């Protein structure tokens, strides 16, 4: 009884840990930026154009919004 309780506890801990890890929410974990779209297959100008238009430089970071709300607690 006690043994199965410990096993269940370990499984729950592992699931929670994995969920936090996969979403980058573990304390001190550095999350990666969004991946870029795959390059097109040829070097035709129309494909190069698509590659350039697909290339987005993201404007802001959500982290600043979090810090703004943290600032209210200071």
């Amino acid at each position, binding site marked *: 009884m006690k043994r199965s309780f410990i096993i269940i506890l370990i499984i729950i801990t592992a699931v929670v840990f994995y969920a936090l890890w996969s979403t980058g929410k573990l304390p*001190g974990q*550095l*999350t*990666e*930026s*969004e*991946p*870029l779209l795959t*390059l097109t297959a*040829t*070097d*035709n*100008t*129309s*494909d*190069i*154009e698509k*590659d*350039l*238009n697909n*290339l*987005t*430089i*993201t*404007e802001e*970071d959500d*982290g*600043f919004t*979090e*810090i*703004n709300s*943290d*600032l209210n*607690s*200071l």
Partner: protein
Amino acid sequence: MKFLLVWLVLVIFVGNVFAETPPSWQTRREEVQTRIEERREELQVRKEERLASVSARREEIRTRLQAVRDEKKLQLLEKIEEKFAQINQRRTGHFLKVLDRLREILAKIQSRTDRAEANGKNVSGVDAAIAKATAAIDAAETAVNTQADKVYEITVSDETTARNDVGALMKKLQEDLRVTRDWVQKARTAVFDSLQALVQVVGNDGGVATPSATPT
């Protein structure tokens, strides 16, 4: 029979030649990717060094924030400083990815230019634009690496002004990242100019080339 055999050998030979020779842009792309991989390894080392310094800073932050008596506020300040480092890491990581991609796109423009030159076109204008784009990407990469090495340390001399001090530091990080982003944007525009120069020489192949200089 002999004629058929000769044809068969010829077909196999030609097939092998084509099978073993990838398109020139792919060869260029592989070269670019090798260089990118080398740089990534260097960056990984720098990233590990930065992470090590973050852990070291975590220990000395308490000394820096001696003026803060409230334990909750102290923990919050530690958390915010860590978030500054994370944001800087994430944003500069994104910028480096964009620059790597710009190098890959430029390799495509170069290989298409080589084909045009082989077909007797005058590509001097495109070559000049490609050289400018390469320089712009290099300059942007230097700016991004400089930004990535920056450390945003919270210093609080008075608990009552902590909010303003941290707010000012956040604005500084936002402004620094905006300036760095401008470097990347300039590199993107330079690659866009190379494509425009290429389109002027070879026209549009496979569609209407109307690239946007402004990222979405």
